[in-house]
């Protein structure tokens, strides 16, 4: 596939607003996870919450979209001059030549969860003012972002659970390759809600404290929230220092709705396809940002998948002990972390690991390492056995 240029990117998560705070937290090996005090949730766990969303105001003409998820999207768009970069791109290519493809798993469902507590006692109806289209529906966030950015090209939300905002890169790449667009705003926005917190609790997949990916005593994931955006454009042969999307690989497990294939067969196939798409060998990859949720089954299956393909030398880590698992935003958030890693020669060590699981044989970094990086891989796997691996590199 033809490499695409990541012209501009930004991320907002519990590590902070924008690239500077995100990088500072990674460099300081600081986690943004805190004890769960979200809404009325009574669960003994930790979460990665973005502070200050209550104070975010949407533009007046887009108030109909007001919900936690779209506030998070707005806050994310406001960082690092992202809107300005998109406007410059639209001026260059044309508004109809920029697509918008965003990943989310739960969009604004928190609005509906809260509205269900206020149903009319007699009729059972939802309260007046409830707005399904603009706040609940999965399309809401993509529709909000394209309107906020005044773009008129193809648009869709991609909803493949925890691989949603990895797959947006592949979708944009196809649409650009097919000539329908010249550039795309891709990313992921997913915010805290009761469905995911109580849902993962029901599956006994939530860590009691902060998640501990690859630890012997790991007991589950910590849920976070994030907005991450990337402006992808056709590379024009400019010999610059931009980060490039080199390849994407996708596969399905065809195994189980909520458990990965125990051998990681689907994960391995997604990574293989990403390498093939980029025309690269395993030895070309300098660092792997793992899916690494911290559930016993994910880390074990992913370790088998990575070691079967790469062996056990390639440095790798999960950044989810820092950010929490931001679900539908995780792919894009970790794409931005990979871009920061490439630009700063930083291999972020995984946090919260006190005793390695001897069954997990990967070269899992527990401390930050400095080294020039040329090519990095990012893994994202979701419920339903839906896998995506992305390869990023430097233009020069």
């Amino acid at each position, binding site marked *: 596939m033809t490499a695409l240029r990541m012209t501009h990117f930004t991320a907002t998560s519990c590590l902070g607003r924008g690239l500077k705070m995100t990088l500072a937290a990674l460099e300081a090996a600081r986690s943004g996870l805190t004890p769960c005090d979200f809404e009325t949730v009574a669960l003994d766990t930790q979460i990665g919450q973005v502070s200050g969303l209550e104070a975010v105001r949407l533009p007046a003409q887009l108030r109909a979209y007001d919900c936690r998820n779209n506030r998070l999207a707005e806050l994310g768009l406001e960082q690092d001059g992202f809107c300005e970069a998109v406007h410059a791109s639209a001026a260059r290519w044309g508004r109809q030549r920029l697509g918008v493809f965003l990943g989310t798993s739960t969009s604004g469902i928190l609005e509906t969860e809260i509205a269900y507590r206020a149903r009319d006692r007699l009729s059972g109806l939802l309260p007046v003012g409830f707005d399904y289209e603009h706040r609940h529906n999965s399309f809401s966030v993509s529709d909000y972002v394209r309107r906020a950015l005044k773009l008129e090209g193809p648009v869709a939300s*991609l909803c493949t659970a925890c691989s949603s905002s990895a797959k947006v890169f*592949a979708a944009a790449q196809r649409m650009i390759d097919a000539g329908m667009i010249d550039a795309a705003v891709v990313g992921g926005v997913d915010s805290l809600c009761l469905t995911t917190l109580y849902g993962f609790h029901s599956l006994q997949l939530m860590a009691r404290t902060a998640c501990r990916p690859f630890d012997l005593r790991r007991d589950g994931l910590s849920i976070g929230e994030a907005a991450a955006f990337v402006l992808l454009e056709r590379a024009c042969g400019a010999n610059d220092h931009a980060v490039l999307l080199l390849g994407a690989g*996708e596969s*399905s497990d065809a195994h189980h709705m909520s458990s990965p294939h125990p051998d990681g067969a689907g994960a391995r196939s997604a990574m293989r396809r990403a390498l093939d798409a980029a025309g690269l060998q395993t030895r070309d990859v300098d660092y792997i940002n793992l899916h690494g949720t911290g559930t016993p089954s994910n880390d074990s299956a992913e370790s088998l998948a990575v070691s079967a393909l790469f062996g056990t030398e390639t440095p790798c880590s999960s950044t989810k002990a820092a950010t929490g698992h931001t679900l539908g935003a995780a792919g894009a958030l970790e794409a931005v972390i990979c871009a920061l890693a490439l630009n700063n020669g930083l291999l972020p060590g995984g946090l919260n690991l006190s005793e390695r699981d001897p069954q997990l044989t990967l070269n899992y970094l527990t401390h930050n390492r400095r080294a020039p990086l040329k090519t990095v891989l990012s893994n994202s796997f979701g419920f*339903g*056995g839906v896998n995506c691996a992305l390869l990023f590199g430097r233009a020069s």
Partner: protein
Amino acid sequence: MAKLSVCIEGIGVLGPGLCDWPASAAVLAGASPYICARTVLPPPDALPAAERRRAGRVIKLALGVGAEAVSQSGRDARGLPGVFSSSGGDGDNCHAICEALAGSERLISPTRFHNSVHNAVAGYWSIAYGCAEASVTVCAFDASFAAGLLEASSQVTHNGCPVLLLAYDVDYPSPLYEQRPIADACALSLLLSPADSPNALAVITLALSQQPATRFDDPELESLRLSIPAARGLPLLQQLARSRSGTVFLDYLDTARLAVEIQV
């Protein structure tokens, strides 16, 4: 103007008064009257027993309709990437979760939770057919059919391989029904392949357009088109049912429709 060209090798449909493609083709071509009746869902026989027990209405709807297009094409479902498109996924499941979360116990079953992901149909489909190929699930509210058709066609063009497009919606129970009045269950499927396929029923070429959306003359069919997002694709199926070349304009965004030029 950028365009995407792909072949259609198979068609599936199920919805109110539309029980399969041959019967629907007769209705859409005007050879049979349209008689609106509640959608009757097939049993999800392709699933293993454990998944069959957990399958809600949206799974039954989509699996049946997907199988119809694949079967017509003569291809093996195991080797087909899938593009799944839906406005709201499993409405019954969403309601049940919101109701449970509004109660004091807040107990959600693991099955409820994994069925809540928008890509649940894709997961069940992959398990039913042992399909380890890529899948993606898109949502664009009322534009979901057109968004899915664009995504699937760009995959065919980019990868040079056939892709199954499966668009489906089910009605929500009250009180979400009052906020999002989807009339009934409806699904459309198309087996799309590269434009030089020898098994083509038709070649379609997609482009964005400023023309208004194509409407049905029949008021009941027009009402169906407007009341279920997946049914926004029916004008394309009508053209195919008539075996006539021409262009239809599918509802997409406020800023553009999706023009579909059909060559039979």
